[in-house]
């Protein structure tokens, strides 16, 4: 990839951030935040998108951003009041801008019709409010606040029919102090003119006062340059582009050109400048005479504005608002190939495993924990964990990038359903490993769709129920117990339990006489094939039910649950590991194979007495655990490693909570203990394997498989899935 392409990639990444800032800024304003810096920030976001787009010649994007920016500039300067209706328009304009960026990323342009409509709307606001006719196209040349008219600077000059012939120009210019105060140099101006052709330079020092009256910081000199070149006056004017107000300049064509001396050296600019500087009482470095503010010394020249030469820090220029965290992170950053970090994380994972193996071997040799070796190992373990945490932190990202995409989704679903929805987000700076970030967007999207489509009532129904007509959907992230918890709540009608129960019975998911708690009923909506929508709507329908959501969450080693209060709303709670890179697991032996069971699934491990094991049917069995019977699942048989069953009374039983089948008792030959393992994908070189979540590499270099407990329990069941007992902790 060449460097420009790389910058383009950076540009689109930056666009995503800017669009996120734009939207969150607008949403804050919509929510009533009046901090002035917010308007500046949204202006800058659009401005930066435009700037970058211009650099890559993305013209459609530039054009739209420009219209958007113009309106925002009016808002910023107070010309256009920022009323609530306008914020809504700006939010939709932000969506159109996002579409343009997305289209540009794919090499196309945004939807023309949508753009045209939005441009008209924005221009109407720019010219004074909604409903007003868009203004006539503004001329390129417009007066600024000071009434000064600028000519646009043309970079490429049109070829005139009578192409300029070599002619002689007489250029006289007299710099003012202000010119030097801006680090412009008469010498450099002469050098620029010299680039155009052959020059003769004359220093005019008539204005130089007698020595006693000399002001060291005042510009006294003027120059007269005789230029022989085939250039237009514009070309010469360009030389003075930066100094036009700080230098009195005349450019005339010599009517009867007398030929410049064709021979002889060109002007020695350094000598001229040295001569000029020699006139000052103190020696100055070449080209940089010291200067301080003075009043213009020349009465025949326009007086300098007193404010211009030496600037005073404006208190207003230091804005007190905190920098957005993303910018903070930008400061003094280094770029690292993500693959290097992934590799580092892998290696640290291996280090953790090796450290654990070492500790085990040392303990096996009879060293006491209090011995030097034992203490040394403790320190090593602490250090290893610290390194691991630090390395993981490198790859951690705030969930903000995902949350930022949601307001738009909510607006769109609200539009489709005709419901009034307000999205409240919380905890968007909660950090989680990149591997998780990449995969939480989809379940969150589904949960939000579900909350608006099924959870919230229509405005009329809400009003009838005595609720505000605008429904609220809350999206929050927090850390809890070494996991990240994502909550999606709504203040809608809550789960209609009698109906859910009836559907589950109708579909054969539960027995007609099943005794279920409210919580169990609520969680029925996660069963495969369950859909509460009586009519398949555009939004939550299309076959993507909550069972699919749960499946994808489980694929991440996560859990999802719901709690609901009739009439008050529902709350989905999604709990995920902080990383998909490592996992705390129980290492077990089954049929001569070493397997790893995720610790999060395990409730407890038991060595059951023979009397606690009850046969049920030909192959099945249950284990009496305190007051309940829990189905036995023989891991080796389910996975097909062996046909004979282990007698649970001779092996070990892991009591697990599965999302699908409730509590189950996994039977294994033996337990090796807990380990943190590095998760290795089976899919990168092969494919998903039933009952297996992933693989890992043990200290001896062999591959061990990590069990997918839910899939395993599901595989062990022949009959329709049944809820056995509450398997999910209630939210909050």
């Amino acid at each position, binding site marked *: 990839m060449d460097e420009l392409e790389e910058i383009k990639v950076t540009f689109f990444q930056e666009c995503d951030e800017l669009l996120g800032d734009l939207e969150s800024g607008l949403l804050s304003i919509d929510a009533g935040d009046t901090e002035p810096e917010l308007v500046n920030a949204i202006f800058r976001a659009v401005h930066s998108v435009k700037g970058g787009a211009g650099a890559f010649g993305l013209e459609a994007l530039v054009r739209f951003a420009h219209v958007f920016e113009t309106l925002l500039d009016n808002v910023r300067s107070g010309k256009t009041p920022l009323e609530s209706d306008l914020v809504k328009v700006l939010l939709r304009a932000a969506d159109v801008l996002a579409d343009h960026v997305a289209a540009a990323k794919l090499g196309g342009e945004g939807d023309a019709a949508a753009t045209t409509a939005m441009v008209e709307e924005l221009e109407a606001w720019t010219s004074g409010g909604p409903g007003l006719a868009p203004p006539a196209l503004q001329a390129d040349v417009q007066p600024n606040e000071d009434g000064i008219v600028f000519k646009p600077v043309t970079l490429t000059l049109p070829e005139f029919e009578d192409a300029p012939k070599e002619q002689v120009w007489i250029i006289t210019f007299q710099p003012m102090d202000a010119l030097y105060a801006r680090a412009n140099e008469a010498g450099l101006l002469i050098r620029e003119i010299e680039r155009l052709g052959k020059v003769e330079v004359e220093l005019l020092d008539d204005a130089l006062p007698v020595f006693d009256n000399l002001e060291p910081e005042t510009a006294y000199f003027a120059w007269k340059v005789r230029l022989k070149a085939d250039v237009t006056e514009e070309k010469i004017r360009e030389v003075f582009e930066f100094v036009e107000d700080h230098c009195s300049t005349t450019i005339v064509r010599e009517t009867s050109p007398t030929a410049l001396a064709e021979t002889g050296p060109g002007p020695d600019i350094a000598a001229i400048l040295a001569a000029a500087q020699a006139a000052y009482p103190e020696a100055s470095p070449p080209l940089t005479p010291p200067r301080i503010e003075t009043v213009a010394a020349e009465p025949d020249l326009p007086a300098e504005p007193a404010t211009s030469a030496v600037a005073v820090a404006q208190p207003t220029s230091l804005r007190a608002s905190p920098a957005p965290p993303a910018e903070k992170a930008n400061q003094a950053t280094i770029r690292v190939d993500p693959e290097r970090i992934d590799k580092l994380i*892998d290696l640290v994972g*291996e280090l953790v495993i090796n450290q654990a193996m070492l500790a085990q071997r040392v303990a096996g040799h009879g060293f006491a924990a209090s011995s030097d070796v034992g203490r040394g190992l403790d320190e090593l373990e602490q250090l290893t964990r610290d390194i691991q945490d630090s390395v993981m932190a490198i790859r951690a990202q705030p969930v903000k990038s995902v949350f930022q995409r949601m307001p738009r989704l909510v607006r769109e679903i609200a539009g489709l359903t005709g419901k009034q929805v307000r999205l409240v987000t919380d905890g968007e700076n909660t950090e989680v490993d990149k591997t998780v970030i990449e995969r939480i967007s989809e379940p969150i999207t589904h949960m939000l769709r579900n909350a608006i489509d099924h959870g919230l009532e229509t405005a009329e129904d809400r009003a009838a129920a005595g609720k505000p007509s605008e429904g609220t959907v809350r999206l929050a992230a927090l850390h809890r117990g070494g996991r990240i918890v994502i909550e999606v709540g709504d203040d809608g009608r809550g789960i209609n339990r009698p109906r859910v129960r009836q559907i589950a019975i109708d579909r054969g998911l539960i027995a007609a006489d099943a005794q279920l708690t409210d919580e169990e009923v609520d969680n029925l909506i996660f069963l495969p094939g369950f859909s509460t929508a009586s009519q398949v709507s555009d939004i939550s329908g299309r076959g993507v039910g909550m069972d699919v959501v749960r499946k994808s969450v489980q*694929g991440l080693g996560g859990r999802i649950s719901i709690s609901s209060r009739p009439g008050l709303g529902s709350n989905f709670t999604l709990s995920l590991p902080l990383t998909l890179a490592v996992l705390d697991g129980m290492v077990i032996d089954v049929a001569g*194979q070493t397997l790893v069971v995720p610790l999060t699934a395990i409730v407890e491990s038991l060595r059951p007495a023979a009397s606690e094991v009850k046969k049920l049917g030909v192959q099945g069995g249950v284990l009496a655990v305190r007051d309940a019977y829990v189905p036995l699942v023989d891991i080796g048989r389910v*996975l*097909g*490693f062996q046909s004979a069953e282990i007698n649970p009374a001779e092996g070990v039983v892991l009591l697990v909570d599965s999302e699908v089948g409730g509590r189950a008792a996994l039977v294994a030959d033996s337990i090796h203990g807990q380990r943190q393992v590095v998760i*290795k*994908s*089976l*899919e*990168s*070189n*092969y*494919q*998903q*394997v*039933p*009952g*297996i979540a992933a*693989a890992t*590499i043990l200290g001896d*270099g*062999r*591959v*061990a*498989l990590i069990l997918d407990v839910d899939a395993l329990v599901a595989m062990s069941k022949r009959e329709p899935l049944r809820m056995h007992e509450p398997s999910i902790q209630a939210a909050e």
Partner: protein
Amino acid sequence: MNQPAITVANERRELTSFWAGDQEYCVDIMSVREIRGWSAATPLPQSPSYMRGVINLRGAVLPIMDLAERLDLPPTEPSERSVIIVVQVGERLVGLLVDAVSDILSINPEQIQPTPDVGCDQAKAFVRGLITIDDRMVSEIAVERLLPELEGLAA
């Protein structure tokens, strides 16, 4: 700028040949990543029997396929002489369990004949063509067709 692609018709190809189930096969040497000795694989549940399991290839999980069994020949009995040929198939790596590596062949593309219409389905499915060298017949394996139908590929 618009140069025609250089014709490759006359370029010689190099192939790695090996023995599997009493027959000689080969794959393009460009697809071979490495050749290593046999080490016990961790079996995968609920998988076709020709998938012998997975091994650790420098930190990555490498699936091992018994090539003979995949071709409907009697399964390979892994021994100390057995080797695993690690081949690249698209973005993936897969290890082929074979009896022994035999040769590096340098051939003209014209030497490869299409697979004749023989009764064996597996041969038709996995053999790209036949190469005759002296009195040997070597079948070129189409490695991209070896892996079982991939499900959940998009996930």
